[in-house]
């Protein structure tokens, strides 16, 4: 089997002197969805941030399409084709929806109109509200702006840190549908989710982290079927 498109291999590290990740490995194949789940404090977001270069690794490496990017800054990784949607303050609240998307495409020198049209196709509500200030939108719509902004760089891999935090179940289902759509267009998705059951349901690959290490790794469906995963992490 070929090496995965993006892999954080045996990552060890944390924000300060204390390690949060202990040899944790996260990978995603081209055009697939990988989901990181696990209990609170398991290091899910930290693992994601490590892959994106937001903390220094003391061990392990990150490969994107076979290239070692362990030493690159997050900004440089954006230029390499990685998009990241943080969990909070992930939009420019004082700017309009359209300006948010324009800022997402800041590093691009070419015409961004077609990408913007694609984002509007994906999230029709944003087209309607494109001249409205993003801070005035509802929670679900803000998340759409956030994802749209990250898509504007035409990333090869999109990383989402709890995209459904704080939105209603209906909006959550819709967001997941959109995420599947994005993956079908060939973009790899790596996301951290609190709603483990729903997230694993759409995942090609699932990672269950506990205390900074891989506890279970399998396809989403297999994890959902695994009685031990169900009992420990999915509430029966």
């Amino acid at each position: 089997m070929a090496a995965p498109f993006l892999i954080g291999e045996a990552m060890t590290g944390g924000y300060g002197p204390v390690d949060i990740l202990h040899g944790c490995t996260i990978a995603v194949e081209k055009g697939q969805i990988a989901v990181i789940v696990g209990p609170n404090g398991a290091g899910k977001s930290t693992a994601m941030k490590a892959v994106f270069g937001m903390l220094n690794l003391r061990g392990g490496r990150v490969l994107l399409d076979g290239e070692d990017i362990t030493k690159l800054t997050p900004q440089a990784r954006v230029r390499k084709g990685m998009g990241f949607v943080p969990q909070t303050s992930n939009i420019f609240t004082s700017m309009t929806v359209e300006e948010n998307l324009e800022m997402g495409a800041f590093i691009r020198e070419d015409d961004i109109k077609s990408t913007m049209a694609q984002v509007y196709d994906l999230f029709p509500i944003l087209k309607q509200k494109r001249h409205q200030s993003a801070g005035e939108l509802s929670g679900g719509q803000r998340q759409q702006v956030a994802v749209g902004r990250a898509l504007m760089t035409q990333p090869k891999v999109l990383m989402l840190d709890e995209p459904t935090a704080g939105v209603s179940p209906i909006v959550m289902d819709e967001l997941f549908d959109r995420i599947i759509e994005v993956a079908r267009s060939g973009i790899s998705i790596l996301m951290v989710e609190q709603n483990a059951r729903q997230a694993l349901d759409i995942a090609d690959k699932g990672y269950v982290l506990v205390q900074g290490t891989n506890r279970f790794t399998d396809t989403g469906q297999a994890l959902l079927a695994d009685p031990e995963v169900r009992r420990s992490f999915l509430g029966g």
Partner: protein
Amino acid sequence: MDILNALVAFLNFVFVPAFGYGCQLALGALGVTLIFAVLRFSSFAHGDTMAFGTVMAIGFTYVLQANGITFGPLPTALLALPFAILCTALMLLGTDRLVYRFYRKKRVDPIIVTIASVGVMFVMNGINRLIPWGGVEEINFADGSRFLMEAAAFKEMTGLKEGLAIKTTTAVTVVTAALCVAALFWFLQKTRTGKSMRAFSDNEDLALLSGINPERVVQVTWIIVAALATIAGVLYGLDKSYRPFVYFQLLLPIFSAAVVGGLGSPLGAIAGGFVIAFSEVMVTYAWKKVAGYLFPADWLGDGLLQLLSTDYKVAVSFAILLLVLLVKPTGLFKGK
């Protein structure tokens, strides 16, 4: 009752001077607010930046005049502006390199940078006084025609007892300020660089994730601040006169204007400039003349109907600043 003469007297002694002064404060406050929005600190050196820009413009004005170049009825200093802005921009970028960048890299608390700017203020204060053609004395560098409309001509034209004089420098101030504000808003709303400045001000981390280069945003901000400060200083100097100490004192009304409007909000800075200017002029104006046209003479008594002597005009901005901070700290236009 003579409403027309009262109105003309009001326009001549209150409205026109306050409007011009308001424009100058607004430009100054725009600089303070931009620094706050993008660089996230209150720059106490802004009054001295204005003084530096003005003294540079005075230098270039002398050079132009010595070479026989003037601007017809308009002040020669306007021609000197681009050169003066360039000097001020270089000075500010140099200061950023020497002082502010160090703190930015360390991501220190804004208050520390603010205190550092107090140090910059003292240094600038000294440098401004050492400039050979500047010094500490008052300098009048306005040339060209003095009045757009003279009081006598107005009286003749309208047959009113009160005259309305409009100084060329006041008219120049209003027009220049309007052009500057229009250009600034166009830049912030429509250009890629302007939008990236707003994005950086709104959410620094996300701006970084979007590939916006913070150092470039900071540089562009300093250049715009240099332009605004120089223009504000030159307009004030043309309208009144240049003296480093007076410019240093301008810091208070400018800060009040920025805070009244809401720190970080460009619209607020403009509104705040006018609020402060009109308050200062109206509180320190002797209303006896205007009132004399409106009310019978025996109602008025002997007083000048002046709330505060002009010596205390600084107290007005200070009082407004305190009031705003106590009652509505975010200012009129929801700053930060």
